[in-house]
């Protein structure tokens, strides 16, 4: 007899009177139905953006990095800002699927699949920026350490930029494996109820011949647990290493020891915001409100207010250290280039403060955490704020160098820099629209696993358990 008790005080994770079959029906329905008009509109908009992005990148490849408005001091402008922004967004998926798995947070089951998909697409977008920033992109393979005819001249293993190559490619691979191994049983579910030949063929290939054997499930569970255990330090390491790109330099504004935890918190913050933006829409469009409940939304909003406040502390610590260090350059960067609203980029600093630190405080109120409109609006605001943060870190630190003679003119992006950024939105949403249509957006097997413990209709019967005294209960059910 398996133990199926959870306190009634805890909110159900699955609403309604569901059976296992009903769960399958609800989640697979969007895959089997024809896409709606709205889906086509969204999908083609994304493809259009993608095409514009491809043209922008084409110009950059053919004419060189001169197509961008970078200058002598601002060598990392929008490009690296966008890179760090997308990588940050790509942290929520693995956080939800790995760290929350280790912490036994049941609510992860409703959102982990979509969040992991989002992670993978975000990392794909992020990867484009440093690759094309190289200028001569056809030599991008030079970053790989391999015996070559140039000496062999090896890459610099002591450089954070190379650590980044390893971190991001490992992160992408491991996330993809984690995501896909979780998808196998769900593809099998779609395959076994498929009516059309094409669907049988495609989902048959995709499910690798999964049968649901007990032994396979046992191995699958072991695999998920170990992959979660590996991904947890991995996800923390990735943004730590991204922060090293800055922190190991001697540029005032970058040369900061609090960068690793500050970047990781910021990554989780923006990642959860992106999950919110997507899930609020997906659950509505596909009618999955019973699975991605308002309780899920609230839980994620709690993470947002926590990480937003951590980021806020980091901003204040930086300001404090800018004064306390008594370093002229640090002071200039933090108190003039950033905190002074009337300095050239002061607007971006205060935009960041408003979006990341002040506005998320609204989530201290339960009513606000459970309000979909507030959640959606805030999730957009947080992502704008996190973009400002990366822009502030990069541009305000470098636009005025140690040497006033090389101070740059006001940096603003060219249309092709903006186009590249828009193009990654196109890539991201093209992938996400395809995912939402053709993949089970919620982990079916995992929902079934928790259904009889946390399903609303099953919880109503938990009262019988609660009448039993604790000792008697333990005696009867504990192993």
């Amino acid at each position, binding site marked *: 007899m*398996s133990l199926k008790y959870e306190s009634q005080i805890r909110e159900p994770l699955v609403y309604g009177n569901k059976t296992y079959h009903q769960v399958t029906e609800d989640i697979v329905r969007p895959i089997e139905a024809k896409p709606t008009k709205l889906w086509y509109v969204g999908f083609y908009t994304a493809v259009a953006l993608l095409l514009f992005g491809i043209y922008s990148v084409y110009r950059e490849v053919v004419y060189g990095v001169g197509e961008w408005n970078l200058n002598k001091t601002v060598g990392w402008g929008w490009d690296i800002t966008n890179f760090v922004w997308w990588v940050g967004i790509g942290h929520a998926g693995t956080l939800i699927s790995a760290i929350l798995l280790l912490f036994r947070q049941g609510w992860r089951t409703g959102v982990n699949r979509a969040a992991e998909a989002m992670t993978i697409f975000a990392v794909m977008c992020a990867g484009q920026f440093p690759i094309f920033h190289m200028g001569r992109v056809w030599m991008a393979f030079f970053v790989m350490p391999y015996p070559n005819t140039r000496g062999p001249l090896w890459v610099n293993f002591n450089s954070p930029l190379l650590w980044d190559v390893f971190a991001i490619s490992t992160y992408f691979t491991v996330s993809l494996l984690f995501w896909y191994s979780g998808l196998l049983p769900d593809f099998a579910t779609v395959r076994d109820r498929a009516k059309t030949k094409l669907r049988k063929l495609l989902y048959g290939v995709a499910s690798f011949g*999964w049968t649901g054997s007990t032994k396979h499930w046992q191995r699958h569970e072991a695999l998920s647990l170990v992959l979660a255990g590996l991904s947890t330090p991995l996800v923390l390491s990735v943004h730590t290493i991204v922060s090293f790109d800055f922190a190991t330099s001697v540029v005032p504004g970058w040369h900061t020891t609090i960068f690793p935890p500050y970047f990781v918190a910021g990554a989780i913050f923006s990642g959860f915001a992106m999950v919110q933006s997507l899930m609020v829409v997906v659950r509505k469009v596909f009618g999955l409100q019973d699975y991605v409940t308002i309780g899920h939304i609230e839980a994620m909003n709690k993470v947002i207010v926590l990480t937003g406040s951590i980021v806020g502390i980091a901003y204040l610590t930086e300001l404090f250290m800018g004064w306390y260090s008594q370093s002229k350059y640090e002071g200039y960067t933090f108190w003039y280039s950033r905190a002074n609203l009337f300095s050239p980029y002061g607007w971006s600093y205060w935009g960041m403060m408003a979006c990341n630190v002040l506005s998320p405080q609204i989530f201290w109120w339960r009513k606000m955490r459970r309000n979909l409109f507030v959640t959606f609006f805030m999730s957009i605001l947080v992502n704008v704020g996190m973009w400002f943060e990366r822009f502030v870190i990069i541009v305000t630190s470098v636009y005025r160098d140690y040497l006033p003679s090389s101070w740059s003119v006001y940096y603003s992006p060219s249309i092709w820099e903006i186009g590249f950024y828009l193009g990654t939105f196109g890539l991201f949403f093209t992938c996400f629209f395809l995912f939402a249509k053709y993949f089970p957006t919620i982990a079916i097997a995992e929902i079934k*696993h928790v259904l009889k413990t946390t399903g609303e209709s099953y919880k109503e019967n938990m009262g019988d358990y609660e009448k039993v005294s604790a000792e008697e209960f333990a005696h009867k059910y504990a192993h």
Partner: protein
Amino acid sequence: MAKKKFVVGCFDDEDVLFPAVKKVRTAGYKIKDVYTPYPVHGLDHALGLKETSLHTAGFIYGLSGTITALGSITWIFTKDWPLDIGGKPYFALPAWIPIIFELTVLFSAVGMVLTFCYLCQLAPFVKKHHFHPRATDDLFVMVLECTDSTNSSEAESFLTNSGAIEVKTEIAEDGWWFGRYDKNEMLFESKSVIA
């Protein structure tokens, strides 16, 4: 691979399944497998399956990643092409920790997934016999393998009495083969059935 005779019993409730597994095993039937739509905790123990050692494999893969990274970087930076970078020592271990860590994780994850696929015989275009299409939806499908001494109709009624909502006897291919799920190909004309 060969065709074998199986008795299939479908259950729709875990609370019925667990006592049934116990009864069937005590009665001496050989359970080939139980196919479930989600990982039912404790079912592996109830079936008497051994713990998987996939974790150990993961550890070994991880270790090989550590050794690969540490070994190659050491050889490259101390033997093959010692490079003076800002006066740092050639053997700059702290600076290599990130890459060593990443390769450990990469080797472990990739190795484990490949091992998992190998052990479970999972790959694109692999096809297996599915005893019930609802095994991935809402049924727990217990499959008994018939031996010389098994009376299949007796086994069927035994399963029904244990709470199975649907029973049947099937002759099916035991292993896997390359095939497509949209085609119902005949594997081979095998008249002889083991047991």
